[in-house]
């Protein structure tokens, strides 16, 4: 029996990439309005990855990241992470709220980060829902700053029931002038926008977009 995630064909991975571009494009627009700056976006990356590589992908399981997590239910279900590394998170708070962040985030800067995460992940999901016609009800997002392995593994629990692989749907947007990045694999400053649909949801996504059964597998 095949593993729907590990064995997904190139055509369907491309469809997911397009979905991610639409979501992150909308999030980029939202961030641009927040910051009053131009925000560019890169073409998304979509790839099936074994769990242990996912944490390597964000700089290693012990790498400290700032993450807003939410779960969505509805026609399709899954998890979403908005991840920024510490330095980029500090710069975002400074740019947006004029708060100078020293070593630790204060209460105020944490709620600014939480709000940024809410807005960006919300606009990402809204674009997805509009485009696909699928209903997605997001939970109240939750913010945490900790080791990447500890945070990301939480979002893999549902997927873990049926696979040891997750499809990394990863988007990057970049604000002009100060290199605010979401979802890049680059030395040093990295941040990611991860969409992790539950395995049962892939088929529903492809059905909704009319590409179910295309491309072979």
């Amino acid at each position, binding site marked *: 029996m095949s593993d729907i995630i590990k064995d997904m064909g190139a055509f369907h991975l491309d469809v997911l990439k397009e979905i991610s571009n639409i979501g992150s494009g909308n999030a980029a627009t939202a961030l641009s309005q927040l910051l009053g700056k131009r925000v560019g976006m890169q073409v998304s990356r979509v790839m099936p990855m074994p769990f242990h590589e996912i944490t390597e992908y964000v700089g290693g399981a012990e790498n400290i990241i700032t993450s807003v997590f939410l779960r969505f239910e509805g026609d399709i279900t899954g998890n979403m992470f908005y991840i920024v590394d510490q330095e980029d998170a500090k710069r975002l708070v400074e740019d947006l709220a004029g708060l100078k962040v020293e070593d630790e985030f204060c209460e105020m800067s944490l709620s600014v980060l939480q709000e940024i995460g809410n807005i960006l992940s919300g606009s990402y999901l809204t674009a997805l829902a509009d485009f696909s016609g699928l209903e997605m009800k997001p939970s109240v997002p939750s913010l*945490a700053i900790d080791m990447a392995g500890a*945070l990301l593994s939480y979002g893999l629990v549902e997927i873990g029931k049926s696979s040891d692989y997750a499809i990394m749907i990863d988007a990057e947007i970049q604000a002009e002038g100060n290199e605010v990045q979401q979802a890049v694999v680059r030395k040093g400053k990295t941040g990611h926008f991860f969409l992790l649909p539950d395995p049962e949801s892939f088929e529903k996504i492809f059905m909704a977009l009319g590409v179910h059964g295309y491309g072979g597998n």
Partner: protein
Amino acid sequence: MAVIKVGIADLNVAVKPDTITTLGLGSCVGVTFYDSSKKIAGLAHVMLPSTELSKAAVLNKAKFADSALPELLRRMVELGAIPRRIQAKMAGGAQMFNFKDPSGQKSIGDRNIEACKVALRKLGIPLVAEDVGGNYGRTIELFTETGILEVRAISKEIKHI
């Protein structure tokens, strides 16, 4: 001396003088076994409480508490460990996000902790130390020379249990 790394939903064994470690435990639970007479250690990075949750065609034994711990014991015995001398320690099972499960279930971290304890009782392996729960991630490393388990977390003192 080598440091043997165990990934998420994985398990492995180590012998003196190597150490065995797993990084960034969140809701997952790291369970270590140690036979002090043979200096043989094992570590499982458990992700889910029960194989009943599995929807996969092929079962990854290391992923579930009820299949990982018997498998870890088997691997250690293969190396020469004596089951009645083995003692267990565990860490992890945190709740990383302040997020309520809509089904009203206990957090996955708590369920993992409980399931590991049940699996240990079934195997008759005593749990001699634990550092579980909370809302923060942990990295653990077991030293085969001493059987000491080191627990590291961000902005917290290193613990030896």
